[in-house]
């Protein structure tokens, strides 16, 4: 498939930019001839809508002129991958208001929970407006249950052109919601200067060229989708093929077809997407696809399981996907997006670290399979990013030690909306405590989990992942549905590990007893620590974030208050 008919017919018109903010995102398009955004719909038969970036600027100016919000005010946008939503987000930025891209509903069910989250978000951030694409209008009508939503403006009512806001300086750009493990939604304040620094270095480290094409199915309410794809393509003036996230989740092959059709070269995804696609497409013949144009498949946003990503490369090999395309990276919204990048073209590289040394927070490579855990290298830091590894008192740790990852530099954001700023008075670049644990291996970053999740038992530091992987190796335990955490134990005088596992509904009481025993033995064998309690739970008991990550701290709270559903067997030992 080739896309010749998709090029817009009318010639580019000269655009005069009227503010430093417009310069940042539309400067390259104005200088070098605007590239095109191809918007795909959920319907796989529909041809994409093509909008050149000069037209997109006109739309965004129209939105800026008609949004019912003042400069400096936050407002929520239901961020579908449609022109209406995109115009509202960009329009807010060109106006100097603060768009907060929010998740639209997806899949079956969940209306009341979704509405409640939206209302909570508006309340927490002080948002006085909710912009909704026409197709979702019926979902926000009426009173509904619980907290009220802010006043609604339909995105289809926004003007399609406007004069622009002359002279708007580069201050705050938008608020990025984080799906943390705490209940209250938080909005990370992103500055245009944060974006400028990160977008430049991401492109530079990706070896970006004028002919590159970005392909994305990532949601615009995630940083990787908004910053890493939409704003990245605008900043560098690259063609962007954008699919709705549900198009990928429903039919994962559409991602690959879009890369093939557009000769896509830069296409990112969170780590879960690679094994997801491999699982869905493992029995399909992919040899009709040609993915040889794909230069960089960024992989990040969550812990990377090497074997799962390698499986993706195998499944895609018949479609000419080169394994060197895979580019593991580390980043977080509080540092705009990207922090470290694998070297270009190398592909996923893993290293075996000693588990026993890690319990003492030391990094030691090993060849002993009995004592090793496989960790993915996340590359060197992007330019201008400073990173320090510190202990729990904020003091730097020694070489070859595991420490908490602290960051400083132009991409570190000022803080959260309506919370105290990160920087002390007069400080220009503050240090950010990411809460992640990391270390250095051969000059590259490795990330070893969240510091608050570490289980300290009998003076050793254990990653919850080690317990969870052991549990998931036992037949009957649901994959990805386990949570390990520490609870205080006065008799032992230390914290002790608890391991919660969802088991398949059809398991009998008898087999549950056997599963609990096996989980305990396997986890003890792997970590050297006997779990104090193995709680077997019904499917759906373990709380997750909206992006599907297990919320260990929340699981721990529920466990301690006796509110974990369906806890059946495996009494404390």
């Amino acid at each position, binding site marked *: 498939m080739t896309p010749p008919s998709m090029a817009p017919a009318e010639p580019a018109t000269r655009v005069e930019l009227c503010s430093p903010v417009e310069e940042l995102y539309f400067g390259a398009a104005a200088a070098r001839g605007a590239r095109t955004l191809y918007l795909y719909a*959920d*319907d796989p038969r529909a041809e994409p809508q093509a909008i050149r970036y000069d037209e997109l600027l006109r739309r965004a100016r129209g939105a800026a002129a008609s949004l019912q919000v003042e400069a400096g005010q936050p407002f929520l946008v239901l961020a579908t991958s449609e022109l209406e939503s995109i115009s509202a987000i960009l329009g807010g930025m060109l106006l100097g208001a603060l768009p907060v891209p929010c998740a*639209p*509903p*997806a*899949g*079956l*069910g*969940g*209306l009341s*929970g*979704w509405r409640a989250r939206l209302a909570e978000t508006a309340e927490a951030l002080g948002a006085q407006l909710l912009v909704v694409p026409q*197709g*979702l209008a*019926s*979902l926000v009508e009426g009173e509904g249950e619980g907290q009220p939503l802010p006043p609604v403006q339909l995105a289809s009512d926004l003007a399609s052109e406007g004069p622009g806001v002359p002279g708007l300086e580069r201050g705050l750009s938008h608020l990025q919601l984080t799906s943390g493990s705490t209940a209250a939604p938080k909005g990370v304040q992103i500055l245009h200067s944060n974006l400028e620094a990160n977008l430049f270095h991401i492109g530079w480290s990706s070896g970006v060229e004028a002919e590159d094409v970005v392909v994305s199915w990532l949601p615009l309410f995630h940083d990787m989708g908004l910053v890493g794809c939409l704003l990245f393509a605008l900043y560098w003036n690259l063609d962007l093929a954008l699919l709705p996230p*549900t198009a990928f*989740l*429903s*039919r994962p092959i559409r991602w690959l077809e879009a890369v093939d059709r557009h000769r896509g070269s830069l296409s990112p995804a969170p780590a*879960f997407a690679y094994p*997801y696609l491999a699982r*869905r497409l493992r*029995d399909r013949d992919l040899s009709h696809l040609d993915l040889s144009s794909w230069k960089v498949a960024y992989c990040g946003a969550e812990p990377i399981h090497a074997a799962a990503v390698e499986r993706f490369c195998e499944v895609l090999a018949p479609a000419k996907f080169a394994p060197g395309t895979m580019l593991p990276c580390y980043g977080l919204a509080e540092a705009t997006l990207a922090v470290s990048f694998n070297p270009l073209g190398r592909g996923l590289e893993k290293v075996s670290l000693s588990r026993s040394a890690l319990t003492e927070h030391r990094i030691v490579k090993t060849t002993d399979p009995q004592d090793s855990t496989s960790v993915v290298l996340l590359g060197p830091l992007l330019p201008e990013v400073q990173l320090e590894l510190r202990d729990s008192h904020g003091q730097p740790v020694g070489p070859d030690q595991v420490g908490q990852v602290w960051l400083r530099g132009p991409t570190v954001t000022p803080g959260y909306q309506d919370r105290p700023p990160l920087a002390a008075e007069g400080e220009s670049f503050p240090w950010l405590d990411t809460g992640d644990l990391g270390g250095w291996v051969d000059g590259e970053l490795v990330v070893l989990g969240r510091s608050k999740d570490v289980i300290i038992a009998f003076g050793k530091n254990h990653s919850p992942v080690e317990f969870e992987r052991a549990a998931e190796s036992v037949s009957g335990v*649901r*994959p*990805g*549905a386990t949570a390990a955490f520490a609870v205080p134990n006065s008799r032992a005088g230390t914290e002790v590990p608890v391991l919660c596992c*969802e088991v*398949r*509904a*059809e398991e009998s009481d008898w087999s549950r007893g056997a599963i609990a025993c096996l989980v305990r033995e396997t986890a003890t064998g792997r970590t050297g620590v006997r779990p104090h309690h193995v709680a077997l739970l*019904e*499917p*759906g*008991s373990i709380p*997750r974030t*909206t*992006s*599907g990550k297990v919320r260990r701290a929340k699981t721990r709270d529920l466990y301690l208050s006796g509110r974990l559903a369906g806890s059946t067997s495996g009494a404390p030992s």
Partner: protein
Amino acid sequence: MTVPKAEIEAQVQAALAFACDESAEPSGAAGGEVDLASDFESLGLDSVGRVELLARLEDTFELHVPPDDAIHLNTGRDVVRYLARRLT
């Protein structure tokens, strides 16, 4: 296209059983019976699982379910009732 309600129920049951057991093979037999009255969250389906289940049903019945319809369908029984209305 008119599809008998019993068949709709059987297909929804099969798709749901498969969605709730990620370890099952797509071509293999479905796992145990899943209660059609349980809501999807209590069956352990996360947001990705609920999108995947919807896609499977759309393929099976060759129709499109708009998002503002889908969000109201919380259980297997809701889905059966909705499909019966669309398909008869």
